[in-house]
């Protein structure tokens, strides 16, 4: 039985009476895709608008009626070689979007105000050394105040709120000295202006806000990019579940929308979308994502099955049971929570510096005031100098030092196919000395792949690949994927027919072609092979067998070798049988390995290693790895991993290669080094500027030059983080 995907339930009504459907698209390789995709959809009935967002890789489509059928559009895109899945944006992502827009607005306001106040300030500075009248200077200062006060009040909000929150929690972050610096600079300037003084620091306060906001906007833009890429992957992995309503009608719904008691149909060759009890049907399922074991398990009505397991053979009708999930998932989630709290104790370098920095500068400012008073200066002048110390030490370069490096490193990682969850993992990742790999789906490819097709000629293999496109069976997909690697544009035969349980057949140029079980292709069944499944292909008199099975990632051997030469300690911990693990370990040249490890044992082993003082990176994809991922110093998960697993990993890597693991380690090491350099540069700036400020030499002109100069140097130095030794270099 084959159900046509019905995406109409994903249509969302819009304000103008149209209906909106957002699709995540995979396979966009160049900008030509924009024209190709939008052009191909021009003639779909009911589709009034299609626009591809090239940045987020999402297609927004607008439909005129609620009962339009989007499936022709989706089939068209799939024929062009793209993978498509309906996308429903989550609350967290739109929240983040709103916050980024707000930051941009703040940035624009502070930029506008900084430019205009600087215009006035430069005139005053020039006038002070020539012939400005005190009245004109006062006018310019009041004008500056008029612009600066509301602008700083608006655009400084991101810092003020965070500083307040930190203070309420009795914590110290960079936001606190930043906020104090801004407020003091503005307050003093207003006071000075009212007393017709020569100097005001409105421009410094605004420039400070502008520079710091630019850093934050970049940071959020980067996070948005990785987040939307990760959300697309999630949508593509588990798009829909086929829900059977009580009247027997079948519809596709997002798997998140399923509730306990729903009945779903899971066809052969697809992942089970929710935990539940089998009501009808028999099959063999691959639960390797849960247990790490690659052997297929037979299931029958009454058995409990878990979301993420792969249904290999027959169609299953499953009653969704949220209650059933609690038993296993709750245990694992508890382990993850325990582990994550231990990780959150890691304090970033920036916060460690902030804890010392803020008290030190504030005491320095107080001492400065006392020193000048002791030397006989008026209280007013002494306070002005003390405030100048606070303004000049306002940690602009210091606050930018880490975030700009995080942005650059995250960008470089993104290009290598690595999506990081937050910038702060870079420091933890850089310290790693031991790497623990899971086997199934991590060292090996997550889906079965073609391992031997030597019995078929190239032409026959191409035909087999095109035939295989008409089936969703994992073995057929392995064949079509292998052929697609050689020939990107692969079209299915329009009249190919799938015969459930046997294979696919089609008449090509008057001759019948078949792909399926050996008996379906009139070939004798070969000897049982535990490492591979067999498919047969026949076209007229030409016939042969192809073997499909678990294979290592293409560059696994080389990556492990490179990691070992870099001095990393490599281990394999797997839930699979010891014999299978031994074979993989010897192929990869890894001497330390263990099979049959339970989730809790994995975590305990990891914790024990951490107690020995090792910094452990865990790389795994299964639900059984999730507690270990959370307990590790840092963790990495392939994009094909289970949802919960990805949620507890610091980063996910995409694609078929293992080399991103290597790139992750080298790029983060380099990133951390540049970060420390940046802190050094910021410190040098302070060492020069603070004595000048304490001695009372700092004028607004010097403050402006020093602050922007140090920020720019730090930002430029951050660019060096991009250049690290990577796998291909």
């Amino acid at each position, binding site marked *: 039985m084959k159900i046509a995907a019905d995406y109409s339930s994903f249509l969302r009504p819009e304000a103008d009476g149209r209906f909106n459907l957002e699709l995540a698209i995979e396979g966009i390789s160049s900008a030509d895709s924009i*024209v190709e995709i939008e052009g191909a*959809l*021009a003639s779909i009935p009911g589709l*009034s608008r299609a626009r591809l967002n090239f940045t987020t890789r999402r297609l927004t489509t607008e439909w005129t009626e609620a009962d339009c059928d989007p499936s022709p559009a989706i089939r068209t895109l799939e024929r062009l070689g793209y993978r498509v899945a309906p996308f429903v944006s989550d609350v967290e992502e739109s929240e983040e979007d709103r916050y980024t827009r707000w930051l941009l*607005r703040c940035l624009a306001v502070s930029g*506008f105000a900084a430019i*205009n106040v600087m215009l006035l300030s430069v005139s005053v500075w020039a006038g002070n050394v020539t012939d400005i009248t005190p009245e004109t200077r006062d006018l310019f200062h009041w004008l500056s105040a008029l*612009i600066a006060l509301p602008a700083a009040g608006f655009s400084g909000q991101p810092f003020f709120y965070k500083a307040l929150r930190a203070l309420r929690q009795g914590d110290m972050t960079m936001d606190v000295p930043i906020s104090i610096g801004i407020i003091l600079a503005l307050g003093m300037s207003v006071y000075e202006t009212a007393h017709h003084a020569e100097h005001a620091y409105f421009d410094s306060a605004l420039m400070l806000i502008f520079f710091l906001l630019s850093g934050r906007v970049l940071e959020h833009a980067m996070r948005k990019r990785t987040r939307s890429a990760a959300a697309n992957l999630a949508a593509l992995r588990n798009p829909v579940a086929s829900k059977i309503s009580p009247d027997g009608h079948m519809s596709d719904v997002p798997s998140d929308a399923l509730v306990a008691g729903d009945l779903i149909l899971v066809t052969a060759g697809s992942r089970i979308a929710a935990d539940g009890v089998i009501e009808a049907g028999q099959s063999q399922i691959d639960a390797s994502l849960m247990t790490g074991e690659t052997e297929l398990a037979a299931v029958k009505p009454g058995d409990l099955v878990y979301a993420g397991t792969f249904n290999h053979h027959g169609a299953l009708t499953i009653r969704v049971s949220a209650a059933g999930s609690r038993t296993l998932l709750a245990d694992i989630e508890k382990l993850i929570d325990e582990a994550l709290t231990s990780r959150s104790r890691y304090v970033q370098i920036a916060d460690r510096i902030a804890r010392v920095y803020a008290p030190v500068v504030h005491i320095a400012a107080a001492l400065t005031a006392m020193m000048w008073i002791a030397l006989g200066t008026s209280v007013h002048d002494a306070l002005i100098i003390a405030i100048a110390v606070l303004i000049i030490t306002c940690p602009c370069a210091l606050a930018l030092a880490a975030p700009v490096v995080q942005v650059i490193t995250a960008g470089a990682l993104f290009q290598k196919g690595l999506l990081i969850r937050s910038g702060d993992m870079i420091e933890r990742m850089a310290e790693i000395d031991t790497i623990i790999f899971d086997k199934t789906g991590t060292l090996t490819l997550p889906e079965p792949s073609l391992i031997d097709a030597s019995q078929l000629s190239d032409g026959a293999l191409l035909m087999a690949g095109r035939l295989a496109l008409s089936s969703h069976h994992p073995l057929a997909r392995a064949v079509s994927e292998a052929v697609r690697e050689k020939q990107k544009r692969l079209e299915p035969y329009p009249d190919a027919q799938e015969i459930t349980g046997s294979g696919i057949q089609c008449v090509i140029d008057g001759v019948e072609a078949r792909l399926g079980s050996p008996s379906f292709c009139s070939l004798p069944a070969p000897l049982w092979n535990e490492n591979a499944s067999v498919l047969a292909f026949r076209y007229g008199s030409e016939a042969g067998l192809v073997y499909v099975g678990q294979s290592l990632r293409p560059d696994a051997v080389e990556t492990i070798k490179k990691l070992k030469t870099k001095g990393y300690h490599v281990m394999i911990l797997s839930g699979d049988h010891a014999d299978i693990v031994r074979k993989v370990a010897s192929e990869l040249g890894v001497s330390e390995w263990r099979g049959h490890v339970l989730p809790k044992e994995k975590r305990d082993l990891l914790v024990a290693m951490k107690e020995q003082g090792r910094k452990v990176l865990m790389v795994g994809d299964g639900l059984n790895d999730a507690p270990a991922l959370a307990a590790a110093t840092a963790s990495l998960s392939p994009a094909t991993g289970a949802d919960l697993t990805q949620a507890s990993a610091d980063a996910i890597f995409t694609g078929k290669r293992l080399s991103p693991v290597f790139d992750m380690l080298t790029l983060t090491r380099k990133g951390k080094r540049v970060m420390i350099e940046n802190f050094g540069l910021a410190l040098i700036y302070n060492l020069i500027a603070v004595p000048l400020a304490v001695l009372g030499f700092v004028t607004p002109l010097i403050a402006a030059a020093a602050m922007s100069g140090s920020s720019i140097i730090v930002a430029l130095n951050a660019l060096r983080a991009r250049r690290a030794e990577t796998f291909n270099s």
Partner: protein
Amino acid sequence: MTILLYLVPAALGLGLLSLAAFMWSLRSGQYDDLDGAAHRILNDDDVRID
């Protein structure tokens, strides 16, 4: 110095104008797909279906 009466408001007005323009472009979604915009400008025949 009466020239300032014209020049200062003019400078501020121009600045506010560009600020307003930026806010408008932000609201109308022009920063949602920066990569796409860079490539779209090179397409000779934009496909429009509305």
